[in-house]
Each structure stands twice: as structure tokens, then as C-alpha cells.
């Protein structure tokens, strides 16, 4: 009873891979938004920072310079790019999901393709950030003692360690975004309410637990002992959980308008 009017593509590993690759291509169709715009925004923030560094340097006494430079270690100027990637993930799941399903993509292929896209983008941005951090270090803070990429949270290890840190950071934000969007796609605003209520309760509960058992020093010690890279490696636990949750949620989701 099956009628084959169209070209029936065989269900082989290559065909499956092609379908996933097509979803990656779909995500990367509008390239400038994904690959160029974030660098432009970052460039703008960098220029503003350059001016500030220059102002700080110009108004500081020579004796204070070392401590000024140390203080700049805590710059958060580049954190924007991580949040931007979270938003990218939310949009990729929320808006592209109903579109892709109309094109006859399965939820499975859509999620795998989206996950692959997030990994590719993480590598791309981690490479760029590592490059900038390396330049920053080599030029002693762009000649002004400033820090924007080679900052304290990303450790002052080797370039490879820095790359790993950036990569893990991007993966974390991408998949947290993907899982959150999957909750929304699956259960809409009611799901969001329950999700954030539950998240708040868990975080508050953990804080209460830490306070009541007087274990905050232990928590601090854990962060200090693990170091930036250690904490980043541990982030793989929530990242993986989020990635799996996103898949499970989306497998039963229905595109709505």
C-alpha cells in the first residue's frame, strides 16, 4: 500500500547524517547574526574599555599602576558574549523548531543538528576569545595594562587551558539556553513559571542547607581548590544534564503558534 511517488532516500547512516547536517546549515543560514555581530558588539565594548583604561592610567600616580592593573583583572566586559549565546540557543530552539518541523524534519534530527551547531559555535567563539586573550597578554593589556579577555575567571594558564575554559563556558550557556527554551516549547508560559519557581526553590534550598550546616567555607574552599579550570570541568555535569533534558523535552513537544 505504500506508494513511492517521490525520491525515497534510503535510511542509511549517511542519509541520517545528511539530515542532521542540514539542520546545522539551517541554523547557519543567517550567518552575520550568528558569526559576526557578536564580535562587533564585543569590539565596541572593547573600544569603550580602551578609553576607560587610558583615562584610568592618565589619572593614576605611577606608584599605583601595579595595583590598578591588578584591579582590572576582574573585568566582566566579555561576559556579555556568553549571555548572547544563551539567547542564540533560546531562539534557535524556540523559533526554528516549528519552522524545521514544517520542512519535515524530525524532532530528533532537529535536536541533534541544533546541538552540533552549538558545539561548533562554542569552538568558534572559544578560539576567538583565546586568540584575543593571547594578544592581550602578549601586549601587556593592549599597552595600557587593561584586561578584558585574559581575566581572572578564565585563569592565567596556558592558551590550551584558556581555550578549554572558554569552550566549557560557551557549552554551558548554549545548553542551559537550549533546555530552558525546550521547557517553553513543551509547556509554554506555564512551564516557564513552574521551571523558574522550581529553580528558585532549589537554589534557596541549597543556600539554606549550606548556611544551616555552616558549610559556606567548604563551598568557597571547593571553588578555590578546584580552580577556574576545575570548576569549568565540573560545569560539564549541568551542561550534560541540560543537553539531555532538552532532548527528552523536545521529543514530545508540539510546535504551536
Amino acid at each position, binding site marked *: *500500500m*505504500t*506508494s*513511492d*511517488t*517521490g*525520491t*525515497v*532516500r534510503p*535510511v542509511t547512516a549517511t*542519509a*541520517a547524517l545528511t*539530515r542532521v547536517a*542540514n539542520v546545522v*546549515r*539551517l541554523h547557519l*543560514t*543567517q550567518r552575520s*547574526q550568528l558569526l559576526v555581530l557578536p564580535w562587533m558588539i564585543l569590539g565596541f565594548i572593547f573600544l569603550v574599555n580602551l578609553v576607560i583604561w587610558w583615562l584610568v592610567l592618565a589619572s593614576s600616580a605611577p606608584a599605583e599602576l601595579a595595583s590598578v592593573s591588578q584591579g582590572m583583572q576582574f573585568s566582566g566586559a566579555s561576559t556579555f558574549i556568553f549571555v548572547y549565546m544563551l539567547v542564540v540557543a533560546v*531562539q*534557535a530552539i524556540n*523559533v*526554528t523548531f*516549528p*519552522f524545521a*518541523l*514544517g*520542512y*519535515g*524534519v*524530525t*524532532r*530528533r*534530527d532537529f535536536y541533534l543538528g541544533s546541538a552540533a551547531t552549538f558545539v561548533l559555535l562554542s569552538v568558534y567563539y572559544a578560539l576567538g576569545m583565546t586568540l584575543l586573550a593571547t594578544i592581550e597578554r602578549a601586549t601587556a593589556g593592549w599597552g595600557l595594562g587593561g584586561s578584558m579577555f585574559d581575566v581572572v575567571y578564565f585563569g592565567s594558564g596556558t592558551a590550551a587551558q584558556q581555550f578549554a575554559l572558554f569552550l566549557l563556558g560557551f557549552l554551558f550557556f548554549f545548553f542551559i539556553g537550549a533546555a530552558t527554551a525546550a521547557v517553553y516549547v513543551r509547556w509554554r508560559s506555564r512551564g516557564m513559571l513552574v521551571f523558574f519557581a522550581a529553580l528558585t526553590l532549589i537554589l534557596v534550598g541549597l543556600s539554606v542547607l549550606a548556611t544551616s550546616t555552616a558549610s559556606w567555607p567548604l563551598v568557597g574552599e571547593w571553588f578555590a581548590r578546584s580552580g577556574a579550570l576545575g570548576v569549568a570541568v565540573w560545569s560539564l555535569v549541568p551542561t550534560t544534564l541540560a543537553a539531555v533534558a532538552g532532548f527528552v523535552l523536545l*521529543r*514530545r513537544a*508540539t*510546535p504551536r*503558534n
Partner: protein
Amino acid sequence: MSTVIEVAGLTKRFGKVTAIDDVSFTVQENKIYGLLGRNGAGKTTLMQLLTGQEFATNGSIGVFGRSPVESAQVLDRICFIKESQKYPEDFSVKHVFRSAPWFFGGWDSAFAEQLIADFRIPTDRKVKKLSRGQLSAVGVVVGLASRAPLTFFDEPYLGLDAVSRQIFYDRLLEDYAEHPRTVILSTHLIDEVSNLLEHVIVLDEGRVIIDADAEEVRGSATNVVGARGAVAQFVGGRDVLHSEAIGGLASVTIAAVSPDERRAARAADLELSPVSLQQLIVRTTNSSTKEFEQSA
């Protein structure tokens, strides 16, 4: 002719609302189907079920012989253009047409180009900035140029002007003649597409109330117009689908009449006229549906 879709005992509930209520029907290959019904009759839900976008509460759906849910083999051969199709953030029209061929094996770029010109779609414009009609046109182009063996159009021409709608009908028929495929079209503009449809499925409150050849449906009822008394005498005890009277004149819609009855009617100075598909559906979906089922 082979079966493309086979639905048996299909039910879909959303909480307490039953959107699709124990529906069974089949769809044959290479025909144009009209899925008709009032707002909220369940047309979109049914299409979402058939394309694996929605999960059935009960019953079975076979598309190309298997369940469409998460089946790449089935979905590869389907194109589903929704009334309120969403497009990725910041997509321009050209992005839509650039990405479509990756997903539709039968995509015809030359045909797409021609349709884009016919509908005068501005390809450089952001999808977000398109008017309602232009947005519908983009969906129509994707649906036609994809040449998917099973194409669903859900209210494809919301906001399209009369000229564009005519272009859609013409191109669909021309292309369908050269590249036969199964098309399922849901719409409110029943009379406009009436000539296009080969088969109609009418949904009302989640149930299939008509599932018949379009010709058959059109021939299934007759309007009898004439003097009130003569009409009443002619109609007699037949099931009446609809009746209205102005002064001494009456117009009554009844089931189809035989050639003999036709002659009798002419002798009684009554005028018999065909009932349009739209009138028929309006009448059946807003009065009692049981009477029609008996007569059709």
C-alpha cells in the same frame, strides 16, 4: 490507485476538549483533497496529527504505510505549510528559499523563481517585515516548489488578493498535471477552490461529516424554487436541508432528484438548480448533521 493516508479511530483530546473525535478515513494517491469545516472544527489539529507534529490520544495514523511521528522516511516526503508559519529570527525571504532545497528532494528552483516573480515577493525583505499576504505567498511558493509527494496547505492564502489567489489555483493545477502528487488543502473559501478539489472531507466539531468525491457532493443536493404551495407539494416528506421563503415564493434544498422527478418539477413550474459546495457545507455544518448523512 494506492492509499497514502489511512486513519482509523483517531481521537485527540486537549484536556477536556476533544479536538478530533473518533475519525476514520483514507486518502488516495495523486488527488487534491479539500479539508473543509468551520473555525475550530479541527482542521489544523488533524493536519498536525497527519504530519507527526501532534501526538494522537487514541487511534492509528498510517502515512505511506507507517506512523508519521518522528519518521524521517515519512516526513521526507511531506511538506506542511501552515497558516501562521513561523520563520527563524531575522530570516530574509531569500534565506527561506535558500534553505528549502536542503529539505525537499524534489525542489524545483526554476519553478520557485517563476512563482516568486508571479507573486511579486520581495526576496531581500526580512520575513518579519512582510505583509500578511506576502507571508502567505512565501508559504505557497515553498509548498508548490517543494513538489513533496504529500503536500499540506493549511489556509494557504490568508491575506492574499484575488489575483494572487488565482495565480495559486492556476499554478497548482498546471504543476499538478505535470507532477502528480497528493495535496490536502484546508480552506474557508470553498467556492473558490471548488473546481480544484477532487475529494472533500468536511469536519464539524472534530468529526468527519462528509467524506466523498467532490462531484458526488455537488450532485447530492438540489435547490427547488417556485410557488410556495407547489414547492411544498413537490418536497413532500423528503429530508429538507434548508428552506427559506419570501412572500409567495419558497426555496428549499433537498437531496438530489431523479430524472423523472426533474420532469415532474418542470411540469409544476418549479426551478431546479444545483447547490454550490459552499452552500451545501454551510447548510450541513450549521443545521443538524444527521439528516444530511442519511441523504448523502
